[in-house]
């Protein structure tokens, strides 16, 4: 009887465990949960390479496609190394003052196959670590859309290494690793703030620190191959089931709810974008629907797992319409966020975090919280605090890192290299010969 109760407690809290200490008895690994988290890990891997590589690669000019795809690949590899050495420990090791994880798990020491109950009582600790590694790699790979077509390759490596350690890991700790935002009760199921607001705010910092591409607004800079972009969109959608579904840390009801919400929001948002663009510009477009789908998924990432299917429809409607508005607005402001990291991810993430504060329901996920519409207005304000903190921290921190990198090695390629294209000037190769 005691064992059954203990099991129930573990299952319930494992879905969204806040501040739960490791139980004295090592909980039992469940094969179903472990299999799902491993599969989700692989799904998220496919979002980075080749998902984002294709999504972004298709949107740049043909002289920059290899350089842009290489950004995704190198970020995946670099963040993987950093994650194993320091990143995971800084984000998820036992808390130091609510600010950062300690150095207990540097080099993955002590991160074994036994479950660490706080992060999933039924899966090996290393499975959780690897799943989180993919999220950590995906996030800076998103930023790459903002500095596309003009960054120096060595500057990118240094920026990403510093960003991952000093921006991503602390943020992940604050919200997921037992840090101060998590203790306040912030709900962020799979990274509305940790992944999307952080990468979007960093994208804005990149667009401002690097300046616009040569010929921006005068030259023809249309995407060189939108069929690649659609392929990437499909892979992102496919992988997002793992991104959000895997964040349930098990093959359970919350995972199903998260996937249902993800799919519904993606489809609704793509349709919303299509309709709005059709009315505004006179034609529905492929890039528009693809962007709408991504915007919808960025939006629902915070709330998947806390909201029901009809809530997800609202996420999709808001994500599609407001992200479209943000992109039209960008055209008027004039900063060159080349592939719209701000418009899709910052705006989507912010809407998603706030909407979670409205629409979250304990009826969907007992380990979550009720939102404003379910009688808990405080949750909305908690979410708003997380939005502001994440956006400001990521923007300011990123800007600082960028200025430092600029001083050390220079952020941009030379005008001649930029005109030639990154493929030839940075890598001595070209995509289409």
């Amino acid at each position, binding site marked *: 009887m005691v064992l059954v109760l203990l099991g129930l407690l573990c299952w319930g809290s494992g879905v969204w465990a806040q501040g739960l200490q490791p139980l004295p008895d090592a909980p039992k690994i469940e094969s179903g949960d472990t299999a799902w988290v491993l599969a989700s890990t692989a799904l998220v891997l496919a979002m980075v390479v080749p998902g984002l590589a294709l999504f972004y690669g298709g*949107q740049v000019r043909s002289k920059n496609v290899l350089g842009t795809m290489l950004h995704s690949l190198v970020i995946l590899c670099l963040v993987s190394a950093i994650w194993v050495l320091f990143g995971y420990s800084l984000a998820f090791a036992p808390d130091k003052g609510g600010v950062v994880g300690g150095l207990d798990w540097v080099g993955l020491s002590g991160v074994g196959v036994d479950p660490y109950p706080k992060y999933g009582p039924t899966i090996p600790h290393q499975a959780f670590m690897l799943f989180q590694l993919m999220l950590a790699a995906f996030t800076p790979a998103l930023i790459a859309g903002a500095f596309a077509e003009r960054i120096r390759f060595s500057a990118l490596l240094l920026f990403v290494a510093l960003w991952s350690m000093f921006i991503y890991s602390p943020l992940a700790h604050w919200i997921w690793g037992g840090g101060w935002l998590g203790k306040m009760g912030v709900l962020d199921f799979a990274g509305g703030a940790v992944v999307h607001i952080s990468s979007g705010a960093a994208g804005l910092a990149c667009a401002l620190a690097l300046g616009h591409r040569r010929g921006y607004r005068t030259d*023809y*800079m*249309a995407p060189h191959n939108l069929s690649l972009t659609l392929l990437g969109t499909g892979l992102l959608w496919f992988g997002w089931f793992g991104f959000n579904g895997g964040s349930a840390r098990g093959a359970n009801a919350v995972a199903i709810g998260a996937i249902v919400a993800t799919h519904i929001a993606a489809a609704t948002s793509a349709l919303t974008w299509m309709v709005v663009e059709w009315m505004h510009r006179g034609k529905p*477009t492929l*890039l*528009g629907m693809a962007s709408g789908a991504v915007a919808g998924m960025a939006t629902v990432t915070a709330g998947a797992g806390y909201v029901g299917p009809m809530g997800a429809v609202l996420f999709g409607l808001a994500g599609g319409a407001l992200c479209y508005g943000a*992109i039209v607005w960008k*055209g008027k402001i004039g900063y060159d966020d080349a592939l719209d990291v701000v*418009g899709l991810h910052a705006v989507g993430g912010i809407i998603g975090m706030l909407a979670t504060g409205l629409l979250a329901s304990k009826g969907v996920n007992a380990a979550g919280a009720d939102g404003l519409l379910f009688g808990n207005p405080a949750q909305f304000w908690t979410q708003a605090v997380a939005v502001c903190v994440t956006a400001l921290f990521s923007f300011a921190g990123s800007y600082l890192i960028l200025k430092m990198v600029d001083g050390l090695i220079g952020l941009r390629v030379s005008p001649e290299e930029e005109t030639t294209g990154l493929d030839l000037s940075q890598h001595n190769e070209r995509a289409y010969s």
Partner: protein
Amino acid sequence: MKLVEAIIKPFKLDEVKDALLEIGVQGMTVTEVKGFGRQKGHKETYRGTEYTIEFVPKVKLEVAVADSLVPRVIEAITRSAKTGSIGDGKIFVRDLSAAVRIRTGESGETAL
């Protein structure tokens, strides 16, 4: 001899070719070109960004013919390339001072 140059809409090429063969033209040269006239270009929109494409794709057709055939060539092209909407293209005629068939060395109208 005259060289008749016609800039036409690409999708009209087959009809123009057939019309010219019908009136006895034996050969022609075709080039894919870009340009604009009073039609101006078209607009492309990629997410927030709009581009005006001034140079639109066209086909340039060149036919060398005897003077006597020129009016019928012009008539055939005008009839077959016409859609009635803006952007149908233009026909230019210029004098041709010499023509040589490389294989045989024939020159003048017999070389056409």
